[in-house]
């Protein structure tokens, strides 16, 4: 396996007295597509939020592209990272949220352009070209000047993906990106993710309840149960041929 793009080493996370992640060890290879499944409350969101630096691990380390994420090395010791260090490492990571979180005071195009210009110093003209190209790719080339409030949920989520992609992350995180959508809009969003996945070079971690979709695009499926990785393997291994009772009873809820 090539040098992993992200590594979790014995990562624990507690909220108050409640330990929600109880020692996560996970490696994600460059360009690998990982589907994260598990019952509600098992800690899926928390795992990817820690990688996005939105939640700090209680203990353990996360390494992104060879660099500690939440720590820095100082005189041979690991000390908590400062904001500057976080900014430097988190540039490799992008995320799409369940509730889109588009900036409501900006047009669709501005939503996509604001970060490349301000964060990466991309010239305005180039940022615009990249954004338009990306919005066209997600099928919204005709909505550039619309505001988020004028769009359907599915369109909003596609903008959110374009916005994250314009930053060219090495890993993209998806947190149940279709679960806030009306059923008839789920397809268009999954279609876009499928296209992105096909292009290849970016690693993807997808928290999802869409099992058919997971089977379709994932290289590996990870089953999380009560804060631990309980099973992992290829989609066939995990989704079809597992012996685990917990896993099978979880999966049976998705079979109609």
């Amino acid at each position, binding site marked *: 396996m090539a040098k992993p793009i992200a590594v979790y080493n014995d990562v624990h996370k507690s909220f108050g007295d409640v330990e929600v992640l109880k020692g996560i060890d996970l490696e994600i290879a460059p360009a690998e597509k990982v589907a994260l499944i598990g019952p509600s409350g098992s800690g899926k969101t928390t795992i990817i939020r820690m990688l*996005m*630096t939105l939640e700090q691990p209680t203990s353990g380390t996360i390494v992104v592209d060879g660099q500690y994420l939440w720590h820095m090395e100082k005189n041979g010791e690991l000390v908590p990272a400062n904001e500057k260090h976080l*900014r430097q490492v988190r*540039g490799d990571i992008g995320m799409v*949220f369940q509730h889109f*979180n588009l900036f409501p*005071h900006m047009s669709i195009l501005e939503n996509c352009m*604001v970060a490349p210009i301000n*964060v990466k110093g991309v010239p305005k003209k180039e940022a615009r070209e990249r954004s338009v190209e990306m919005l066209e790719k997600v099928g919204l080339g005709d909505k550039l000047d619309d505001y988020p409030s004028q769009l359907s949920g599915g369109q909003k989520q596609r903008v959110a993906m374009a*916005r994250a992609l314009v930053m060219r992350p090495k890993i993209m995180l998806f947190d149940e990106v279709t679960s806030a959508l009306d059923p008839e809009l789920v397809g268009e969003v999954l279609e876009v993710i499928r296209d992105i996945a096909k292009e290849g070079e970016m690693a993807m971690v997808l928290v999802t309840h869409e099992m058919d979709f997971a089977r379709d695009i994932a290289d590996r499926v990870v089953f999380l149960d009560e804060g631990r990785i309980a099973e992992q393997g290829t989609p066939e291994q995990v989704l079809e041929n597992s012996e685990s009772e917990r896993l099978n009873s979880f999966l049976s809820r998705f079979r109609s």
Partner: protein
Amino acid sequence: MKGINITITVLIASAILSYLVAFIAGFGRLSNNIFIRKFTGFYVEVFRGTSLIVQLFWFYYALPGLFDIHLASDFWAAVIAIAMNYGAYMSEIVRGSILSVAKGQREAATALNMSRFQRMRLVILPQAVRMMLPEFGNYLIQMLKATSLVSLVGLTDILYHGDIFRSTHLSLAPTVYILILVFYFILALPLIWLTRWAEKQSSKGVASE
């Protein structure tokens, strides 16, 4: 009618200064530094907890008498009193609006790797300001009304001139006060419109939970 220009200049100067104070104190109360937070909190409580007229007299009489501090002129004493008072109230609006921008907005900005300052400038503040505008407008109207207090420390605003005129033309007293009422209302009208407009603006382009 004389005095209108005083009323208007006091209003404009106090408005600008009070918005400035409101932002400084509002951010102060959100600061990571506990001393700044406590200090601005203390300021806000003191100025909200005492009446404007007492503060006005304080700036006008007590400060020069007690500490030999002379604010540049009567005009500025009045303006600073009004600005500090309304700034204290409006700092709560600044703080509240910033806090009420949805958490997801901050997180999305972080996910795009914006710095703390960029998150505030590009994402939080533009939305928070939209929420502040209508409240700011309401306070502006109140500030207009509060400017009439400056006649008590000898500034020659509308009310002051009205009073003088009445004391020399006693029979016209009711007419004078009706006129003053009308003047204040005419001055307030554009502010009321402004506030309505701000309310419309603020209903667009804000995500809050």
